[in-house]
């Protein structure tokens, strides 16, 4: 009898073996003229002050800094699942912009979903399905 391979699809479990940060790229866009970009672009501001440190702490993320004239300043996070998350940082100060950058870094890119059950498992149940014919004998 010929032996055939089992059809099996590998299940992704990021973090079980190695952990890969889901955020792969972050783009920082600002406007050179508009006032809402002040937190981003001025001296003692985010781009000069906080961004180098942030980039050094997260070498896995590709960081792009580009002017985007006549538009509000944004941070765009691109993720491994192909999705993008854009956060507007207009009018924010350095610390607030850094918080938004950290939020994007810590996210997985998945759409926000309301979770009712905490444990999400791909494994079969350990103790098996209930059977009324097996187990503790009910004494009447």
């Amino acid at each position, binding site marked *: 009898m010929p032996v055939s391979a089992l059809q099996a699809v590998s299940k992704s479990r990021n*973090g079980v073996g190695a952990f890969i940060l889901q955020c792969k790229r972050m783009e920082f866009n600002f406007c050179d003229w508009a006032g809402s970009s002040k937190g981003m672009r001025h001296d003692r501001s985010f781009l000069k002050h906080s961004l180098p440190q942030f980039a050094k702490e997260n070498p896995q993320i590709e960081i792009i800094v580009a002017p985007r004239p006549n538009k509000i300043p944004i941070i765009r996070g691109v993720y491994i699942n192909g999705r993008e998350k854009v956060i507007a940082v207009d009018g924010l100060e350095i610390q607030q912009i850094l918080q938004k950058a950290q939020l994007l870094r810590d996210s997985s890119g998945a759409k926000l979903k309301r979770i009712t059950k*905490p444990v999400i498992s791909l494994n079969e149940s*350990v103790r098996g399905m209930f059977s009324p014919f*097996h187990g503790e004998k009910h004494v009447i």
Partner: protein
Amino acid sequence: MLLLRTTQRSVLRPQVIQIYSFLKSTSSTTPRFSIPILSRTIVTSPHLRISSIPAETPTPISPPSEAPPTVQSDPAPTAHNSLSLLTALNAQPSKYIMVKIQGFTFLVTTGDKVVLPFLLKDVRVGDTLRLTHATTLGSRDYTMKGNPYIDERLFECRATIIEETAEPLRKKEKKKRRTRRTKTVKSKHRYSVLIIKELVINDVPPALATAAGSSTPR
């Protein structure tokens, strides 16, 4: 003598007989190292004889309060018994653990994603945590219950923080009758997501095993 070689994968599921090999001690004696383990032995056919219990009729389960007298009178065999049960638990292919994280209990196996209903402080995404508070450790036929927790030297359960997300923004409108004023309350709770990396049951060192056998009254 427990029958552990009788796990035969037949179409008809084998009859399961409950046996309590419970080392749970009374309040008077507290052993330094306890292995409270419960086993559900399996027989392939009803004709197979088991030396400890009658083969045909399963014995009614004795309540746990009757267990301590057997422990105090004959400590060494029961310690050995529970050690062999622990080895049997370890030998089974899949195991589960009920861990407590900040008071919340989660029943997990290896590879499960746990969305905590809160944000873990002082940790970063990518960190590995060792979960130490476990109430129950079990497999298909064996269960070990802690009192209230299992000794953390017996197992290693590690989890990685993979994400810090939030729920979608939800708004609650609050309005009283015959009043036009409406108050809106916004909620967007933040959550940490863990994934269980490993669940390993450690071998009990022989020194601790003998200590478990000779329970010293405190």
